[in-house]
């Protein structure tokens, strides 16, 4: 069986574009997810057990 690795080099531009989009998506996701996660954590840690506490705790369990 012979392999032709030149396709990877031939389409290097497209692959590089993919890498850039992956990195961009990762950075943007973390920029939004980390502060949002900290906010949810603060709300769940809150001593005030209002009506909002329950749905918040179950929604974060949903996305775990």
């Amino acid at each position: 069986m012979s392999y032709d690795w030149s396709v990877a080099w031939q389409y290097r531009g497209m692959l590089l574009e993919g890498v850039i989009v992956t990195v961009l998506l990762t950075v943007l996701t973390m920029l939004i997810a980390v502060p949002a996660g900290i906010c949810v954590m603060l709300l769940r840690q809150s001593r005030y057990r209002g009506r909002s506490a329950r749905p918040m705790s179950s929604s974060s369990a949903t996305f775990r």
Partner: protein
Amino acid sequence: MEFDFSPVLDNWRFLASGLLMTLALSAATIAGAVVVGFAVGLARAYDPGWLTLPLTFYVDSMRAIPVLVVLVWTFFALPILTGLALPSFWAALVALTLHIAAYVSEIVRAGIASVRPGQTRAALALGMSRAQVVRRIVLPQAVIRMLPAFGSILSITIKDTAIATVIAVPELMRQSETIAAQSFRPLEVFTVTMLIFFLVLFPATRGVDALYRHVAHLGRS
């Protein structure tokens, strides 16, 4: 805006077969991953020397490669490399098991490391063999401590089976896509799919949490 759930109701058997496939793939993956994960985790915790390097390479590479890439590679590239063409279900099972087992092995290793070394030394001083120490002292406590992490792995596994749709495993997501494409009702169909996943996963994760609360005291020392 009008909603029409009739495509879902008319095809409920088709969807149910997808759910069964999702559950079967999840159960098989969990079983395989626990077996492989325990073997790898134990081998890495009780390092026999030459195994460390390949096992560390395996775990680190699985943590660094997306499960989708492993899945697509197993289905499309492995047959060219080995001549072994796996049916889609088996390709998904192999790829998901390889991926999840790496995470299970890390949980097992952490669980074992969490049991104080003084206990191992005391058991050895009492004349127990190394195998006895692992079986009777370390693992009974470590397994309890691993439970919350296993709960997360369980939910991750069930969710990851949806990725198998890309190689046409007829699981819940694949069946939903088919119904949505045929009925032009993606909103209703995919909403029901979300709901089904929720109804499966929410009790599963909460169940593991409840089980842990009941047995957590057995892991303390």
